């Protein structure tokens, strides 16, 4: 049995992963902004076999709330084996381009709050000498593109932060997983037209659980995104600027 803290537990991807954890009897501490959405999910996970499913309402943007949440999770679970960070927003790029406050808000949720939370988590797990940190980033962090660069750059910041943290924690017993999903059919992407590149939240949730079990460092999900992003990163700037990406 694993003791797992999930932040952003109402996200479709987090829920798909959590159902797999529940089916094997893991103990879960579930955090999200909206308690009304969290409670039916927790009840569902208990029925599916989770040995615990405690809910905790917190807005990750409120950095001052992080430490109390982590204290509560450690107390409830009796220690934490895995921290899975799954929250995020997909900001409106046009609004972010027009309004500095919107760009900063997108960065605050998708980068600053993650850096704050993971720093606290990492220190706690390092003291305990064991554990795993898994963070959902995005393929959008691999290269800044006109259509989505505020979100993408926040994710790029998270990627570099996690790379450095993984380096720092090497040999400490704590592993760090960067999860880079491609296009996923979830409520977050409800307004996008769905093409053949979209994967289901269930598929991505399954890939994440496999990567956590394998204590991987970086996972692209679905796997073909590693190839796509390798190509996108390799395109020379003069050509890249003529694309609509």
């Amino acid at each position, binding site marked *: 049995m694993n003791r797992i803290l999930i932040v952003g537990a109402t996200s*479709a991807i987090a829920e798909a992963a959590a159902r797999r954890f529940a089916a094997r009897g893991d103990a879960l501490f579930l955090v999200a902004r*909206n308690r*009304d*959405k969290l*409670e*039916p*999910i927790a*009840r*569902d996970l208990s*029925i*599916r076999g989770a040995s615990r499913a405690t809910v905790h309402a917190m807005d990750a943007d409120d950095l001052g709330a992080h430490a109390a949440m982590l204290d509560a999770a450690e107390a409830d679970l009796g220690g934490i084996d895995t921290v899975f960070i799954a929250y995020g927003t997909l900001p409106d790029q046009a609004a972010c381009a027009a309004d500095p406050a919107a760009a900063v808000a997108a960065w605050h949720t998708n980068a600053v709050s993650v850096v704050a939370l993971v720093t606290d988590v990492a220190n706690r797990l390092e003291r305990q000498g064991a554990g795993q940190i898994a963070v959902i980033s995005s393929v959008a962090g691999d290269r800044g593109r006109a259509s989505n660069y505020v979100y993408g750059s926040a994710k790029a910041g998270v990627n570099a932060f996690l790379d450095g943290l993984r380096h720092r924690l090497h040999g400490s017993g704590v592993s760090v997983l960067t999860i880079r999903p491609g296009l996923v059919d979830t*409520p977050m992407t*409800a307004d996008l037209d*769905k093409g053949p590149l979209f994967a289901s939240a269930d598929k991505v949730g399954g890939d994440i659980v496999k990567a956590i079990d394998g204590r991987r460092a970086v996972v692209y999900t679905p796997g073909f995104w590693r190839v796509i992003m390798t190509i996108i990163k390799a395109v020379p700037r003069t050509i890249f600027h003529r694309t609509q990406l």
Partner: protein
Amino acid sequence: MSRTGSHPSWGRIPVSSPARVTRPVSGRTPLPSPDDRPVLPYGNGRSYGDVVINNDGTLIDTRGLDHFLAFDLDTGVLECEPGVLLADILRLAVPHGWFVPVTPGTQYVTVGGAIANDVHGKNHHMAGTFGRHVLDFDLATSDGSTRVCSPTTNHDWFAATIGGLGLTGLITRVRLQLKRVGGAFMDVDTHRFDNLRAFFELSAASEPDYEYTVAWVDCSATGSKLGRGWFMRANHRPAMGQPNAAGPRPGPNFALTPPFSLMNPATLTPLNTLYFHRKRRRRFRAAQHYQPYFYPLDGIRNWNRAYGPAGFYQYQCVVPPGDAEASITELLERIGASGQGSFLSVLKVFGDVPSPGLLSFPRPGTTLALDFPNRGDSTRRLLDSLDEVVMAAGGAVYPAKDARMSAAAFQQYFPRWREFAGYVDPGFSSDFWLRVTGDTA
């Protein structure tokens, strides 16, 4: 995007082009705003025809409403949201010795869809339809109200919503009574039969002792071989050994649609003849996991694509018991003479357990179900000629599988449709409903 859209029907014939798709999540108002009417719930897309089509309206994709709300391991009462799949219930319940009370030939249907089509299974002669095992549900309607419906509370709404094709409102919560089983395995006893008379004899002899009965029939056989096939009867195996053994791995996938139907006149007779002669023995018994027993086609993902880009019609009718043999003979003769039909032909004798819904399809008699690759007018003419037989016999055709029956046929098959129409939510509609009610609704 393909012409069948992101929310197609299983038969892939009606073009699906909803103006909008909404995906309600738990804990929020499930119905779209009045501007988005008319609406229609869409579950997992296993209905064959236009009962899941609402062109230029809004589809409410219910798959996000897929949470279990309560499960009592002692009584087998399960409470859940309507987007839960029967597959999810089986995965949860079978290890605890519980099973869905009634299941169609695929486990990939939602609970909401199973109610809206009042589905039936191989145990109809004992258990009746799915709706008989529904204890109660919540129904949200576009006037903003939510009704608890059960056989005793709001029983009229209960009867309208079961088999009500999603037209009476959106089901937001369901309580079901599951059935006790010993484990995941079935004892299956399979017999070859040489003609239709032999089918009826086997079925009558099997019904008292076997919970599940169904037959595969060779729809290409004619003359003295007409109606030959394999009869399968089964019971849940009592607990023994490893009751919770995992099911088989997922099988192959039709990732792409072939450019033409793999079921065609050149393959029809050889496939059916080979299957009829697949074993030398006339009878064999085996223990089988519930998945291949109940859901052989679920092992081939997207099998509907085998019919090519033109899609296919499914035709399922029931004819009354008195002259069932004559009616089924006439139907099989017309199908055999047409050279159409396919490999997937099924016969089953329904029992006399009353169906709870105003528009429920199952009724006493014999049901025949088969697929027809879409060959345009000639296929529709054949199906119209089958309707002549069914109408003359006083039978019915199953809306969940239909994409073409006439308004006159529907109104004869479902004589309580006008009473039902009084319960149709004014904010809800479907292409099927518009088609079969014509201008008379």
